[in-house]
């Protein structure tokens, strides 16, 4: 059975390609998939409905959550799956002639419809509640796509959206119900839940939630309005989804749960009332339609109400009748929809006031329609008659069987009224479509034989099944056996004597025909009633709700999203102060603080106090500074001061990184700020400034208080101290911080590398816009001075600088320092395992070396120093880091596991090699890539904007168009 689902999936995936190859005839090939499924299921279905054991298949998916693909073929699912695959095959076949030649949209349609057939089959076969839910929602989404097949019209989009919102709402409610049921029973398998049903208030609520899902899917009042709107879908979709298959999912769920939960409080009143009300409302509205497709749509709403009322009645006879009605309805309603499609395609209209004389011009179709319509109206000798008889008989005994007394009779009366309306609108449909009227006949484009095959086959099946009541009875009854025996044994037969059900059938047919004959006065009466009585309209209420949600969201968004960044940040900070601040105040007590952390105030402590004083002064001056450059330099003071505090604390790695980062950041800030005006833009000194300072000051005090409270509250000894042993044993190094980065918490570091790559790419794309950043160094390579070039200086690229900007001393120093710095950077990277250093520090030193070259010689010099694209460096760094994680897996170890080897080398002795050094190489490369991108973008890129005469303000030309690639270098 899983194979069948997979087959549908593969066919759906291949459908677009197939339509390109075969155009609309691809549907014929696609029809083979459900047809093959039907043929595979048929013998097995015959077996399980004949007393055979249910066919069970299980594929473990997420066992820890109880989510497994459990498929089961029992009598109910067997019959449902035959309907789904059988009608599906015929509808797909029909599509091969329904669509116009070369329809540009069918590539999508074919895939979606085939996928739907698979999802629907999965839905009826699933035994696991969550898998059933997944398929349930899949059908909802696919139905949305199919209704929105033609998205050009607003009304169609809205119809698709309505259907989606309503059924998804029901689906969510159902999911909650499933959760509760799962929690109450401890099993996610529906067959187990049904076999041993729980009870209690929670279960009652769960069942009610499940029924909301079922009713919304099956378009019962008050959810019924989405189904007529769904008629915007192509007719095959209406025939399959909105008549035979998807809307039956709700009925199926009711049939599935009825054996276990029919006696749950509220079940019968809800389903009988809503079902019968839907049946009557649908019938009344069907009588008022002129579009024959809409007439059928309201007829379907009415029939679904009927099905749910019967399926939910919860007696053996009613369950039997319910399942047989599902079968009968699938056959006749899809026939009728397919007929509408043929008529629509042949005449170009679906308005019954314009259609005339088709009985003579389309005789075969006419016969098929009469058969199906007679089945819908419940006339002998069709399946519709035998099943309706069974339903009426079941409801005659409902009061006694279900123990609800007189209510059963009332329900029976409701069914009869609904059935009278059914006969009336059936007559209206047949007369409307095929009758002869006093209007000009529409031009007829005769349909081909193959176009009519599917409706004819379906209608003939309805006729044959009418006679096959004897064979069908035990098979359908095998589903209802779980119910207690009722007053009569249900049976499908054309003749069972002069029973009350037969007399009721006579009443129904006579009444219905009378209603149709008196259609003019009836229509007038209906129109007056609708005008006079302002009945609550479900669709209008739905729109009011949707509008209300939209308005509420606008109000909430408008109130909270003021658009001002300082405002948002202020809110965040105030929350940061108020919420944890309350806890901090309560826990304050007597803070345990000291100046200096030893017992005596040593030289370290004196230095620390002095540094803190310097940092604080610099920070306060930064806030007051109006010059950009001064602010940045003062920021640097706080940074270097922080580094000194790191050293005093005993964190040399941090201090090293901090110093390097601070230096590099200083260069970066200056590179950008040189293009700005020297002063920050003026802001009037207003109240907001005081508010800002107040918020900032309280935030600082609050964070300080948190530091004191959190540190004072600490009782356990830190886990980091325990890293010492493993760092040496498994990480093979002595610098614990570095081992933590490249081994113990390597995933964190790997994530950080990804962030750096993203940031670097972002910087480059903001400066170079849509040109590629590799362009710069390629140009330099082309423009490299030849051997005869006289302007060879100390640095090969500096010749491009204007003479006034060159400094010989700086060039000499840069030339001398660069190789030393590069070697030092590699040294730092490799020795990071033992002494402070590592990939970050090494990469930063290399980045500073490049910065020196750039500052001394300009951007050409930078390109000469690093003749590679920064993207390549970043990418290879990330790749090396990833490989150092993957390779251990390939040799059978864990991801990122370090290997420690001592390799004997002659003369040198044993060389200690730790494989995690490869990860450090990756880190090094990523940091160098970042530095290169920063220098090339914020340095060289901005230089070039200046050289090319772009104004610093205003929209320059380059922002809107890419500079020509082949242009001569400036």
């Amino acid at each position, binding site marked *: 059975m899983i194979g069948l689902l997979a087959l549908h999936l593969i066919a759906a995936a291949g459908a677009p390609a197939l339509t390109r190859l075969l155009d609309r005839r691809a549907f014929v090939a696609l029809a083979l998939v459900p047809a093959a499924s039907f043929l595979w299921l048929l013998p097995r279905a015959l077996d399980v409905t004949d007393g055979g054991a249910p066919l069970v298949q299980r594929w473990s998916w997420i066992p820890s959550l109880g989510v497994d693909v459990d498929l089961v073929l029992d009598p109910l699912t067997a019959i449902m799956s035959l309907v789904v695959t059988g009608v599906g095959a015929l509808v797909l076949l029909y599509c091969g002639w329904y669509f116009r030649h070369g329809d540009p949209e069918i590539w999508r349609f074919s895939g979606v419809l085939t996928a739907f057939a698979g999802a629907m089959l999965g839905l009826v076969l699933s035994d696991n509640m969550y898998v059933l839910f997944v398929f349930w929602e899949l059908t909802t989404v696919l139905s949305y796509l199919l209704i929105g097949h033609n998205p050009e019209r607003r009304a169609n989009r809205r119809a698709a959206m309505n259907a989606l919102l309503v059924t998804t709402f029901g689906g969510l409610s159902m999911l909650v119900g499933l959760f509760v049921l799962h929690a109450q029973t401890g099993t996610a398998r529906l067959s187990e839940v049904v076999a041993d049903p729980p009870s209690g208030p929670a279960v009652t609520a769960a069942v009610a939630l499940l029924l909301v899902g079922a009713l919304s899917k099956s378009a019962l009042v008050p959810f019924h309005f989405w189904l007529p709107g769904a008629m915007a879908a192509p007719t095959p979709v209406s025939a399959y989804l909105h008549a035979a298959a998807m809307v039956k999912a709700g009925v199926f769920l009711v049939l599935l749960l009825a054996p276990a939960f029919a006696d749950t409080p509220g079940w019968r009143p809800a389903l009988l009332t809503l079902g019968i009300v839907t049946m009557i409302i649908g019938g009344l509205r069907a009588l008022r339609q002129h579009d024959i497709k809409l007439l059928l749509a309201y007829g379907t709403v009415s029939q679904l109400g009927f099905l749910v009322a019967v399926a939910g009645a919860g007696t053996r006879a009613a369950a039997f009748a319910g399942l047989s009605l599902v079968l009968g309805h699938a056959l006749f309603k899809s026939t009728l929809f397919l007929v509408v499609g043929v008529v629509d395609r042949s005449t170009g209209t679906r308005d019954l006031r314009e259609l005339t004389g088709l009985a003579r011009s389309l005789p075969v179709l006419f016969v098929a329609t009469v058969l199906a319509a007679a089945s819908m109206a419940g006339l002998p000798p069709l399946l519709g008659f035998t099943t309706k008889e069974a339903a009426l008989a079941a409801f005659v005994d409902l009061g006694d069987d279900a123990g609800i007394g007189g209510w059963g009779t009332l329900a029976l009366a409701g069914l009869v009224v609904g059935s009278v309306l059914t006969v009336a609108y059936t007559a209206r449909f047949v007369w409307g479509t095929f009758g002869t009227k006093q209007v000009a006949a529409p031009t007829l484009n005769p349909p081909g034989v193959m176009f009519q095959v599917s409706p004819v086959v379906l209608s003939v099946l309805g006729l044959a099944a009418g006679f096959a009541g004897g064979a069908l009875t035990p098979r359908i009854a095998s589903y209802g056996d779980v119910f207690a025996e009722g007053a009569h044994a249900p049976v499908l037969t054309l003749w069972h004597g002069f029973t009350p059900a037969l007399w009721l059938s006579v009443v129904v047919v006579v009444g219905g025909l009378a209603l149709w004959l008196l259609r003019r006065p009836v229509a007038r009466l209906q129109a007056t009633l609708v005008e006079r009585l302002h009945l609550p309209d479900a669709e209008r209420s739905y729109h009011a709700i949707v509008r209300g949600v939209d308005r509420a969201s606008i109000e909430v968004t408008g109130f909270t999203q003021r658009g001002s960044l300082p405002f948002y940040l202020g809110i965040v900070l105030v929350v940061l102060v108020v919420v944890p601040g309350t806890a901090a105040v309560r826990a304050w007590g007597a803070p345990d603080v000291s100046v200096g952390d030893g017992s005596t105030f040593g030289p370290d402590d004196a230095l620390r106090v002095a540094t803190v004083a310097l940092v604080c002064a610099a920070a306060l001056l930064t806030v007051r500074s109006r010059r950009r450059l001064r602010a940045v330099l003062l*920021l640097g003071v706080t940074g270097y001061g922080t580094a000194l505090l790191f050293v005093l604390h005993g964190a040399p790695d941090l201090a090293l990184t901090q110093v390097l980062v601070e230096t590099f950041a200083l260069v970066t800030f200056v590179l950008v700020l040189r293009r700005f005006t020297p002063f920050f833009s003026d*802001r009037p000194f207003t109240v907001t400034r005081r508010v800002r300072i107040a918020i900032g000051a309280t935030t600082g005090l609050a964070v300080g208080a948190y530091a004191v409270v959190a540190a004072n509250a600490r009782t356990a000894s830190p886990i980091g101290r325990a890293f010492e042993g493993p760092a040496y044993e498994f990480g093979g190094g002595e610098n614990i911080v570095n081992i933590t980065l490249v081994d113990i918490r390597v995933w964190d570091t790997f994530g950080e590398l990804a962030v750096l790559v993203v940031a670097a790419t972002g910087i480059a794309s903001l400066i170079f816009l849509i040109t590629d950043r590799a362009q710069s160094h390629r140009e330099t390579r082309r423009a490299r001075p030849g051997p005869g070039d006289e302007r060879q200086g100390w640095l090969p690229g500096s010749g491009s600088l204007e003479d006034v900007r060159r400094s010989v001393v700086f060039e000499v120093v840069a030339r001398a320092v660069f190789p030393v710095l590069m070697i030092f950077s590699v040294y730092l990277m490799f020795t990071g395992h033992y002494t402070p250093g590592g990939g970050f520090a090494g990469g930063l030193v290399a980045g500073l070396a490049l910065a020196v070259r750039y500052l001394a010689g300009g951007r050409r010099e930078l390109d000469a120093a690093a003749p590679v694209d920064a993207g390549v460096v970043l990418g290879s760094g990330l790749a090396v880091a990833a490989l150092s994680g993957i390779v251990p897996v390939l040799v059978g170890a864990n991801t990122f596991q370090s290997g420690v080897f001592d390799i004997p080398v002659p003369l040198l002795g044993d060389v200690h090699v730790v494989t995690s050094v490869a990860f450090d190489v990756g880190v090094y490369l990523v940091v160098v890539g970042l530095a290169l991108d920063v220098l090339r973008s914020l340095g060289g890129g901005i230089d070039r904007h200046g050289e090319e005469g772009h104004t610093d303000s205003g929209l320059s030309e380059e922002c809107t168009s890419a500079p020509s690639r082949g242009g001569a270098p400036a």
Partner: protein
Amino acid sequence: MTVDLALVIAIVVLVGCGTTLMLERSLSRILVGFVMVGNGVNLLFLVASGPSGAPPIVGRGGITDPLPQAMALTAIVITLGVSAFGLALAYRSWQLSGNDDVKDDVEDDLIRRRAEADETSSSFDEPETDVPDEEGADA
């Protein structure tokens, strides 16, 4: 665990000054504030990790806690990457509008105006009397 008051004062001043700067509208000021808050928070890690001691190298007695140091180290480098990105944004803003001020969001302002005028969102589909039809536009 006793806390070193000097470090706490440094945290208070750095975070306080940093957030004050971050509440400004000039992007370069915001970035200066951002880096400053970063320094303050890294010191916070240091305070939380316990008293000072020997560098966390195997074999030294009385070492400091290495785990917060590793975390702070990545934070330092990330701060560099993010502030460089912020500078690129500031430059771009300068290129386009001649200043580096962060302005109010236009879309948010539109929504605010809609809320004041009691209107629905622009994507809301007002129901019409139109009947959906499978043939669509050409029918």
